[in-house]
């Protein structure tokens, strides 16, 4: 009985700890011009991050939160943008410095296509990933007609995402934003291992970044 109370207390402590996660947000040198009704935004992944986060993942990550904050924001799908700007702006040929952007944007064919698409800002993933570190242990055993698992496992999960914002009209780097979140998941095992809490660090980071980006682009911050 005492052992059960101690175990419950430990679980409650871990459970409350896991809810104490906060999302950290950082932005640097953001200077965004006001968006006109014709201006659109493109959300892109980068070649380095494309193993874990492709264009669709970036879109799923931040666009819903951006739309929620400002439904008037216009987006051009990454696929359409890349198709129009080929051979530039493929995952590998997208510039990552100001000089590269200026050189590409000075190409007549490129600037004409960007104008026709109405793209003002490119928001591109600069870093992205989730790390999970498992601790504790669960042991499972089985015998003649019976079996089960006992123990306690928890895992620390950290998600981190960063984006660079490029202003294609001003041919400038408008700034960087990044966010991270940490959380602890718990999985006790009494006969069966059942996860009590799974920290949604990635969706928290996506939501935070989407919200902040939409506010920055809408002049609310």
């Amino acid at each position, binding site marked *: 009985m005492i052992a059960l109370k101690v175990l419950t207390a430990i679980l409650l402590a871990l459970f409350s700890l896991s809810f104490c996660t906060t999302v950290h947000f950082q932005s640097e040198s953001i200077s965004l011009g006001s968006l006109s009704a014709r201006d659109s935004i493109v959300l892109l992944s980068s070649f380095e991050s494309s*193993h874990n986060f492709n264009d669709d993942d970036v879109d799923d990550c931040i666009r819903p939160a951006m739309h929620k904050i400002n439904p008037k924001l216009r987006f051009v799908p990454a696929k359409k943008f890349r198709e129009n*700007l080929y051979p530039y702006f493929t995952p590998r040929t997208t510039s990552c410095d100001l000089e590269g952007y200026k050189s590409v944007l000075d190409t007549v064919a490129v600037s004409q296509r960007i104008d026709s698409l109405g793209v003002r800002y490119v928001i591109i993933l600069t870093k992205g990933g989730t790390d999970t570190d498992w601790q504790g242990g669960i042991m499972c055993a089985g015998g003649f007609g019976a079996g089960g698992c006992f123990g306690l496992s928890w895992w620390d999960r950290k998600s981190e995402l960063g984006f660079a914002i490029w202003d294609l009209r001003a041919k400038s780097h408008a700034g960087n934003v990044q966010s991270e979140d940490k959380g602890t998941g718990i999985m006790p095992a009494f006969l069966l291992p059942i996860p009590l809490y799974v920290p949604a660090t990635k969706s928290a980071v996506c939501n935070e970044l989407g919200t902040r980006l939409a506010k920055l682009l809408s002049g609310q911050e």
Partner: protein
Amino acid sequence: MKPGIKSGSHWALLIILVLFVAGCSFEHILKFDTRLPLSPAVEQIPLHIGVYYSPEFVEYTKKAELIGCGPNGRKDRWDIFYIFPVGTTSRDLFDQIVTSMFTTVTRTSKPSQSLNSASSIVGLLEPRIESFDWDTVCSDKYLSNGKFIAKVRYVINLYDSLDGHLVASMHTEGQHTEKPRLCFLDCKDSFGAAEAIQDAMAKFMIDFYEQSEVKRWLLARVSGNHQ
């Protein structure tokens, strides 16, 4: 039946399952298109260029086995093989990009045809496939997930038509990672191969204008054409 899933796919899946259980291997020739929906965003050079595709280039195919991911990143062989028509798909895209780069492009059946002094062709491009690889990368977690990775390498030679000398030999490579999807008989998916080919060609197009030998040659040929 779920919307979007054709009844043929169910049969194909069943046949593959039966073959798999029976220990048979399954081979499928992939059909995919590498051509771009729009012409590339480059300015045309006012030159007449010849393009030569060797039979080895056009007939280049690669057979690769589909690998599944087991626990802790274990790689499981499924005895399912895909045949990638790398040569024909590369030719289709190369035709499109060269047409966007030069005002006039002629495909030649022999390399010497364009090096004939009577022809107005000023240079000849000849692409060659160095390698193509397709594999599954498995994560090392217990519940491992996999991704397809396609890599292609080309060497593209530019010859001058006056004396037939090699102006530049340009190496380019493309790579693409894609999440696995099930795809059977009527499938148009390339499992990342089309994107890797497009990636390599995009690199070639950008690097072409940056190569010092090519720049010098273009300058001489374009100014020669205007005189």
